């Protein structure tokens, strides 16, 4: 009897031990991404940023020949890290996408983009990428922030 009880306890102990070990493995979720995966994911982002750069410099968003880059070279003075914030020209708390549409409709005299469109995502990606490294400052209307300093090339890899 004693022998049997010992075996049961040992078995239970082994099971619990295994379970805890198993749970720890679950908590660690998946293995970290491989270098290759990270590279592919970054390439996908850069493709979107590049598309955004092209749109940023394209008069086709508006009707008066102007582009986003007329006033925002290298996405300067877009301050994407300060959104959402109250925009006095929009008259409410606005997201970056709403502000992009405001610029398309007013200075560029164009038609607003659907906020979930690929074009809008690309424009947003470009502006945010040119402000990489900034601390998020939602609501900051105190000042204008410059984009990253670009020495050469388009400003992204």
């Amino acid at each position, binding site marked *: 009897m004693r022998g049997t009880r010992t075996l049961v306890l040992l078995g239970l102990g082994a099971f619990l031990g295994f379970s805890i070990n198993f749970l720890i493995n679950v908590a660690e979720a998946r293995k970290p991404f491989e270098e290759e995966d990270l590279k592919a994911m970054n390439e996908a982002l850069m493709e979107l940023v590049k598309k955004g750069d092209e749109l940023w410099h394209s008069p086709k968003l508006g009707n008066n020949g102007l582009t986003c880059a007329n006033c*925002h*070279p*290298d996405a300067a003075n877009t301050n994407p890290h300060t959104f959402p914030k109250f925009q006095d*020209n929009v008259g409410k708390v606005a997201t970056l996408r709403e502000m992009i549409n405001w610029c398309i409709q007013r200075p560029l005299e164009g038609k607003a983009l659907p906020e979930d469109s690929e074009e809008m995502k690309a424009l947003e990606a470009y502006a945010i990428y040119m402000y990489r490294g900034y601390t998020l400052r939602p609501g900051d209307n105190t000042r204008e922030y*410059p984009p990253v300093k670009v020495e050469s*090339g*388009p400003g992204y890899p």
Partner: protein
Amino acid sequence: MKEMSRRKFIKVSAKAGMAAFTAGAVSPLLGVVNVTEAKTSKRSKVTPFRFVVIGDAHLYEMDNHRFDKTFERAINDIIKMRPKPDFVLFIGDLAQFGKVKELEKGKRYLDRLKKAGIPYRIIPGEHDWYLDMGKTWKEMFGKPYWSFDHKGVHFIGMNSILVRDYWTARNMSPWERMLAIAELECHICGLWGVREEQLEWLEKDVKNLSPDTPIVVFTHSPLWDYYPRWNFQTEDAPQVRQILSKFEKVIAIHGHVHQVVYNKTGNMVHIGNLATAWPWPYPPVDLPFPKIRMLRVDPGDIYDGVGFASTFLDDTFLGVMKYHTWAELIPEDIKDGVPL
């Protein structure tokens, strides 16, 4: 209200040069620039006068464009100025893409000045030039670099937007060449400069002038390294500054930056002019004189962030440049002008 303040400006600015000098003698003027440091000539006498600097109109082909409206408003304001400015200097980028129609439109506006009895001088910007390599511009306006004397001051204008060939190897059409350089952040266009021909000309032009001659030099781009990425620079500016270093004082006025900016190098003071088209944001570098800057712009107002400048030079070649704007753009400290 706007008319009132314009008249007030004209009355005030008649005394502004002297006021600037007096304030400077007591203390560094407005805490931003020490005009007492500025060297003035004891021998050369300037007959006080004023001139206007306007530029960066960036006119598009289409009719009733927003940039037509702002440029036209500026031209109308200049015509109404009393006393009349002695002349107007257009500091480059009359057109957006160097098209014949754009340049013709710009010339029609400028010719209204002439009809009103105000002569103008002009230098080119990159937007005027790279569609046909300056052919139309030169046919309309003549030589892109020149000098003249006026009331004791020697004025020099130069073409500072000359780049090395980036189009042939890339097999670009004239239109592609133009579109590339029309982007401020063009990353294939390279740095601008005035280049050898103009350096040689400049050397000859100033050779026989005495060091106490008051000099004013106009270029589209700044004659100092501000932010090369946006060609807020002139590659051979060090050579230009070297040639002009024999003078007691040189006032250098530039366009291209579409913003209020100021600097000093050696014997030179440098000041940037506003555009009539749109303002550029400040680049990601520190301003040498952080108090001489413009305020936040309302992007919903086509008349905000833009304007032109009126410059007054007194008999000792101390000057003041006052930005003429239609919105709250200029900080209180420099509202009455930036001392030069």
